[in-house]
């Protein structure tokens, strides 16, 4: 039987005095790419924080073993060069550092020349590329990705999507929050639409169309109708 790599049942989650998300149930299965969609303030980032276990107020259960997280705003360790982030990553995986592979990827993403620089000084797009590489090299069971396309150039987006596809083929599950609906429609297997902290529709493209009452409509139109 197919066992989900991510299973969440969030009864409520939020901050000190505010409850932001409620009654969220979601599963991600191996090899599946699930799009987490919703307008600004719908609770997507709070849902992701619930999954990571970094919300001050949380009630519910999360089952997630080995995950990699790509945040919306790239997070680096102040005082480390980009390259040192990679060496640290592999030390935590107890794997020998694959120098040639890392350098080839850095070359491919246009980060090779700045590998010994502080990533905090990079442009937003370059920071995001570094973050994506750090996560993809981990080879976890599931990826939690928050707005990955922000600041990425088209070439990097294409390479990123190819790498995500390869990871899906390896059996990794992906939960991806995004506003880029055209791309999401093309790559996601299932969708979860959120509004005001709740799931308002979920399922495949067909099921979303049915929920919105718009047969043959694009995800963009369904999103508009449902939210």
């Amino acid at each position: 039987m197919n066992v989900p790599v991510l299973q969440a049942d969030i009864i409520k989650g939020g901050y000190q005095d505010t409850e932001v998300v409620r009654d969220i149930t979601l599963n991600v299965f191996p090899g599946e790419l699930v799009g987490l969609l919703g307008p600004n303030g719908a609770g997507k980032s709070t849902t992701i924080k619930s999954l990571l276990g970094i919300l001050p107020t949380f009630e519910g259960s999360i089952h997630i073993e080995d995950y990699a997280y790509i945040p919306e705003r790239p997070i680096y360790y102040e005082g480390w060069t980009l390259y040192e982030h990679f060496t640290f990553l592999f030390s935590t995986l107890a794997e020998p550092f694959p120098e040639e592979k890392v350098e080839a990827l850095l070359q491919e993403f246009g980060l090779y020349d700045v590998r010994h620089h502080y990533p905090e000084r990079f442009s937003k797009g370059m920071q995001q590329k570094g973050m994506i590489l750090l996560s993809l090299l981990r080879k976890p069971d599931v990826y939690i990705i928050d707005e990955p396309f922000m600041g990425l150039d088209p070439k990097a987006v294409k390479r990123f999507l190819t790498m995500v596809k390869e990871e899906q083929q390896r059996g990794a599950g992906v939960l991806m929050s995004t506003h880029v609906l055209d791309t999401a429609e093309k790559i996601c297997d299932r969708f979860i639409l959120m509004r005001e902290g709740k799931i308002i529709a979920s399922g495949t493209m067909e099921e979303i169309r049915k929920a919105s009452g718009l047969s043959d409509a694009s995800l963009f139109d369904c999103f508009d109708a449902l939210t």
Partner: protein
Amino acid sequence: MNGKKLFSERWKEEKRYQKEVIRGVVDLVTFLYILGPLLFIIPYIYIELWHMPSLYWSEKLPITFLLLLLVAAGAGSIRFYVQEADKVFLLQVKSVIADMKRQGAVVALGFIILKSLLLTAAVLPILYHFYDYSMRDAALIVGWLSMYGWLVAMVRLTVSGKWRMKFVHAFFVLLFMLNVQVLMNPFIFLAEGAVVLGVTWMFFKYSVRSTGKLDAEIEEERRERHRYLGLIFQASMETDTAAAPGGKRPWFYRKSGRMFSSESSSIYLLEGLFKAFLRRREWVIGYLQILGLCMLGVLLLPVWAKFLMLLVGLLFLLSWTRYIFEQLLTSPFFFVVPFREEEEGVVWKNFRNTLFGVAALLLCVEMGVLLFGV
């Protein structure tokens, strides 16, 4: 609003802000028990400095050292209170920015002269008793110190490039030292003063109109505005105080090289923490300051107080090291790539043994040398 009026408004607002910052720290108790007595004692110390200067200074110390202290305290900067939002509005009316710079320059000149006067007056007893400087010489020092401070202030608004700035600064320091130690002559002062006047005229006519360095000027303003606040945060262990490392790439281990040869994950984490520590100037300076103060205390205090100083210093250093360690581990990056929590204990032990251990060893060796002469 014209530049003069805007400058005046911003200047008043800045004074209000700095007053609030200082009032946040200096409450009535602090004033009564620390600042008040200090203000009361300073005139007595100054009088004593005139009567018994050997209590405060040694004739063995070269005058170069004193002049370097003077010159380090004497540099000035021109503030014209430009803000981030000005990029949107004032860039379209450059004459307003130029006006603000002119006003700022005049105010800065006043402060630089005042500061030079006070600094020279403070060291006057030493200059007079130990190095045979007369009142006329002291007046020349005030003049040269003012010119030095003024030139540095103008250069900061004109010259770009960190290294070029350092070079020009070093040149002015050398010129000041040369003037005071070798060329103590009113005619040379007048000749140099004429050159400075010419430079000033050029500055007021041309440099103030330039907006090419506006981003850097806004950043400098932000730094100046938060200078006292920064000092307060720096002294506080309750807030995260270290600024991000400067520059595009590190000074230490520029090519991301390894510090240790071990491949174990705990050593990688330890190495990462050490690198992050060594690359944050504020922390390294803080560590050296604490260690330096403890060593100075042990050196100067009577024997019973040496032991007290050693004990208090070591306890403080230990708690400071722990604080830094915790700060280093609270990075949100560890949500992206978590470290193994079970390794925290081992890493802390190694981190403590190195940072605290080195300081403790130095202090104990100093104590041993002072007590037993070994």
